[in-house]
């Protein structure tokens, strides 16, 4: 296994007209499961392809441990990859598909047989070895692709949205299976996805990308609780974090945030962080799950809270949760409450905000202040 280091990695297409990846700096630790997360077109696949050697970088360096692999062809890198469309070769039986990497690397025949058997059993496709890919379901083909990728025990395992072509139910099972497999094999893994739930549940760390730039890297909870920018804050979490324009005011009671139709007084430690922004407009972000409605539900572990008033506008009942849309000064703010909550529409309510989980962003740089 090996540590992968990307240094100022760049990739431009069409003579620099498309900047797919910009100055990417990222270290993937030995044995780590790193998820590369971002919306479609943000440069995830391009980054992965550069790590694999299928794409030559426009600039920057790629290190596998202390080996500079930047311009090495894929075959000299000891990597494996699971492709988005699986790329399971249709003219080879499952056995031959899985055995291919071993045959190319000239393993002895009996070891090939053993390893294919090992990989196939690990992925529970032992009975399918004699079939052609056309005879398999999507999920089975996906397993073949994974088996093929792990059979040589690569130093680095790359996966490009491997679950995006599966149906929702299968995706959930495969998520857990791939994660368990990786933990067992301890192979350094880069996993690309645009699905934030996948990223949260699978990654040891998440690297969030947008428009070719790396925005934030950290463990899932950190990226969730301490997003460093508006993009990361809204991209992670569902329903999306509520965003409101507010201005920073100095009152007798300390620093407060004034929004349309509400005033949110801040504890002094938070308020001090905003001292440079007094009388300026900033963006306030609160996750739906960090609010509740007085008399309906309580928030656990809340140390400091504030109340604002709103009117119930719409109810989304999801069974396990209820999303209450409330109108606060002409803007919709969503609140996520556990269980089934029957509140009449049009009712005036008091909304409790967990002040230790609010976020404030600079309106111009979109970076987090709190």
């Amino acid at each position, binding site marked *: 296994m090996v540590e992968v280091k990307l240094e100022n990695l760049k990739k431009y297409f069409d003579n620099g007209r498309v900047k797919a990846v910009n100055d990417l700096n990222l270290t993937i630790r030995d044995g780590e499961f790193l998820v590369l997360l971002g919306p479609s077109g943000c440069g995830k696949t391009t980054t992965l392809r550069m790590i*694999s*050697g*299928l794409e030559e970088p426009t600039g920057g360096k790629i290190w596998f441990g202390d080996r500079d692999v930047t311009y090495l*062809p*894929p*075959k000299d890198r000891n*990597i*494996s*990859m699971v*492709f*988005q*469309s699986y*790329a399971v*070769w*249709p*003219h*080879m039986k499952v056995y031959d598909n899985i055995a*291919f*990497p071993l045959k*190319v*690397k000239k393993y002895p025949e009996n070891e090939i047989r053993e390893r294919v058997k090992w990989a196939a059993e690990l992925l529970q496709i032992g009975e399918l070895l004699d079939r*052609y*890919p*056309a*005879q398999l379901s999507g999920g089975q083909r996906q397993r073949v692709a994974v088996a*093929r990728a792990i059979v*040589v025990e690569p130093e680095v395992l*790359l996966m490009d949205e491997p679950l995006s072509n599966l149906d929702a139910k299968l995706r959930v099972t495969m998520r857990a299976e791939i994660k368990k497999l990786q933990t067992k094999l301890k192979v350094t893994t880069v996993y690309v996805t645009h699905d934030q739930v996948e990223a949260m549940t699978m990654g040891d760390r998440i690297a969030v990308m947008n428009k070719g730039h790396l925005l934030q890297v950290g463990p899932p909870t950190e990226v969730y609780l301490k997003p460093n920018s508006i993009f990361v804050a809204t991209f992670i979490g569902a329903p999306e974090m509520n965003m409101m324009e507010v201005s920073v005011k100095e009152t007798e009671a300390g620093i407060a945030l004034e929004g349309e139709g509400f005033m949110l007084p801040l504890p002094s430690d938070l308020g001090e962080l905003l001292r440079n922004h007094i009388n300026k407009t900033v963006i306030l972000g609160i996750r739906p799950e960090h609010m509740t409605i007085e008399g309906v539900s309580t928030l656990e572990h809340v140390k400091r809270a504030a109340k604002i008033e709103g009117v119930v506008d719409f109810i989304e009942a999801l069974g396990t949760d209820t999303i209450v849309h409330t109108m606060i000064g002409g803007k919709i703010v969503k609140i996520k409450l556990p269980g089934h909550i029957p509140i009449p529409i049009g009712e005036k309510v008091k909304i409790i905000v967990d002040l230790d989980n609010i976020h404030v962003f600079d309106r111009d740089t979109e970076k987090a202040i709190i």
Partner: protein
Amino acid sequence: MAKKVSKYVPYLLVAPALIYLGIFIGYPMIEGIKLVFYENGGFSLATVHRAINNYYFWPALRNTLSLVVIIVPTQLILALIFALAMNKVFKGRNIALTLLIIPMTLSDIAAGLIWYSILSPSGFMNKLLINLGLIHTPIQLFGYQFHTREFIMLVFVELWRSTVTIFVIVLAGLQMISQEYIEAAEVFGAGYWTRLRRIIIPLLKPSIQTALLLRTIYAFSIFGIVWVLVGRDIPVLAGEAYYQVTQIKDYGVGAFYALLIAIMSLTIGIIYLRLTKAEYLEVRR
């Protein structure tokens, strides 16, 4: 009432085409068999004897088969190389591609005459070589005493003209192979040759099969190019059929040669289909 009519609609739509093909392919077959085996109101092998004992028959059969055996495999290899090269992105690709496919819309008569301007005794090649001082007298390629040279020339010109058929089929097949299949092989450690041998060519198998089948069958009826370049110096089956019908007016012998070509084509078609099934295509569904 309306329901009842619609049951026959599919057949009514197909029927004209089928009847037409019956008239223009089925009927001549029967007519041909009659011409060959039927004489003076009864079964007769006289025509067959006449056809087989014709001085030109065995050479024609031999030449036709030799041309097929030499030309088709050679052009398969050429076409594969061309297609692999043209599947890349490079400067000048469009010009190269356009030139390569021009023969596709060129008749074999035209191709033969075009090459005559290069190869004739006063043609481009001879004049060029003489003026470069490489030779002193023109290289003679035409005339029945230069039988071997004529044969090689035919192979050469036919390669120039008809390789494009395979090329186009293989290139179209190549363009339909998902790039990910090839990249996957690359990632798992395969070099260029391994990718070619283990991934690209197997995936091209259906294209290669059809291309080979088509070319082989076309090559059995090789005629125009032979006729304009070397005439009957190198007799071929279709040429003899033409000669018998237009010059000798022996329709029976002409029909025999034509039927022979048809039968050889059908046989090859069946053999090809039997031998070269791509297994993974068969199991689909």
